[in-house]
């Protein structure tokens, strides 16, 4: 990347959202949102509709520019709020979208190949040759996401759950420092949901993960620190049990 890293800020955090505000013509999607993700942790983000979960993802990945506030990455080396999607991706932030967006016309294998951490420039892709280490890497990922038997299938023909996993696999292939996972189990069966939880835990052994999810059973299954957003800012933070005891959380979820 061409941009010069900022000097190290005094934060040990991998990701540090500092007072982010975003408003779409009047309506405040994010309101002075601040929180910290430590390296290697897994964080679940919950919250009712319109709490700003997806907007937060957009800000981190550069899809939306915040009106105010900064997003510091890697101990404050980079301010993501100044970079565009491509640069941010290149810094090692991978995103899985709410609605699975794999490349339908490509085989499972090619989907991974495209995601594989590699030189993204035109020349490189023109001259690219597959190499044993890369082959092994892909095999390994296929194994993790349990799609080995379907490696040469067209991604478009996969089941919903399989697509979700493929996309998670693509995240892994990017070898990002940080994974942003948006509603990974939406529309999955119970068993698929539980498998996904296992998968994410597995991934978390080596990577930092942020999961946005409504499915409480799933979040409980993950058993990690939970941040509850409401109206664009943090309402409560802590273990799932603490959060679900929290008066205000109960209020926003069960009513006023």
């Amino acid at each position: 990347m061409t941009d010069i890293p900022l000097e190290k800020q005094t934060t040990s955090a991998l990701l540090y959202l500092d007072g982010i505000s975003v408003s779409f013509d009047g309506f405040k999607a994010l309101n002075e949102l601040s929180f910290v993700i430590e390296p290697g942790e897994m964080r679940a983000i919950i919250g009712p509709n319109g709490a700003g979960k997806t907007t937060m993802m957009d800000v981190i990945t550069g899809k939306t520019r915040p009106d105010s506030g900064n997003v510091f990455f890697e101990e404050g080396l980079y301010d993501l709020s100044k970079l565009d999607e491509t640069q941010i991706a290149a810094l090692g932030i991978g995103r899985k979208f709410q609605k699975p967006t794999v490349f339908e016309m490509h085989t499972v294998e090619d989907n991974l190949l495209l995601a594989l951490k590699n030189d993204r420039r035109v020349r490189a892709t023109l001259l690219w040759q597959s190499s044993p280490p890369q082959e092994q890497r892909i095999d390994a990922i296929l194994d993790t996401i349990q799609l080995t038997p379907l490696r040469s299938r067209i991604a478009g023909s996969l089941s919903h759950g399989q697509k979700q996993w493929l996309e998670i696999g693509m995240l892994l292939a990017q070898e990002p420092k940080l994974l942003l996972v948006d509603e990974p189990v939406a529309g999955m069966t119970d068993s698929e949901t539980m498998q996904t939880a296992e998968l994410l835990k597995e991934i978390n052994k080596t990577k930092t993960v942020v999961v946005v999810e409504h499915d409480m059973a799933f979040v409980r299954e993950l058993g990690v620190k939970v941040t509850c957003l409401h109206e664009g800012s943090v309402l409560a933070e802590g273990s799932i049990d603490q959060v679900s005891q929290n008066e205000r959380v109960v209020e926003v979820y069960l009513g006023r």
Partner: protein
Amino acid sequence: MLDVANINLHYGAAQALRGISLKAEPGKVTCVLGRNGVGKTSLLRAIVGQRPVSAGTITFEGTDITKLTTVERARNGIAIVPQGREIFPLLTVEENLETGFAPLKRDQRSVPDDVFSLFPVLNSMLGRRGGDLSGGQQQQLAIGRALVMRPRLLLLDEPTEGIQPSIIKDIGRAISYLRGLKEMAIVLVEQYLDFAQELGDHLVVMDRGSIVYSCDRASMDEGALKRALAI
């Protein structure tokens, strides 16, 4: 009246509804509860015909409407107050209400007085652009707009979402008034328990695309309900 018989619904490969069955009666409010992402909205989409069901049937006033288009269902007397209001931003309040004339015969084309007596604020803003209204006003407009259609089935999708308490009260009052008229069946999708409890005659809790708990107000077991909704 409305009879939804174990329907499935898919978004591409994703299954949003799994064997849902639901009934609604005139003068009664059927309340569908559950956190978001569990398929409540998908259920309403299936009822108004915005998404085709992959299995099961939907019967309305004795006729099978499973295959009908959204327009035809609306013309048969099904009105929806969608999530996020979806009022027409560039139309004035008056024009927004008038869009409800579509299913009506020429001579019936008038805004019922109820609309203004329930939501006086609309009367004072007839000339304003829908997009310029506050969230609460838009919500009231959306309900008013649905009432203009003289529906016999009214579907409300989270009418309290992101609305300040005072207006929530108004909306609550409006819904119970409409129930009192005994002219229409009402299906209310809600995330917030107490709002649902005070209005719902039947309560249904959904999770991950299927119904996990249902009861009448009378036979309601608060504990079981809370557990079904548990976070």
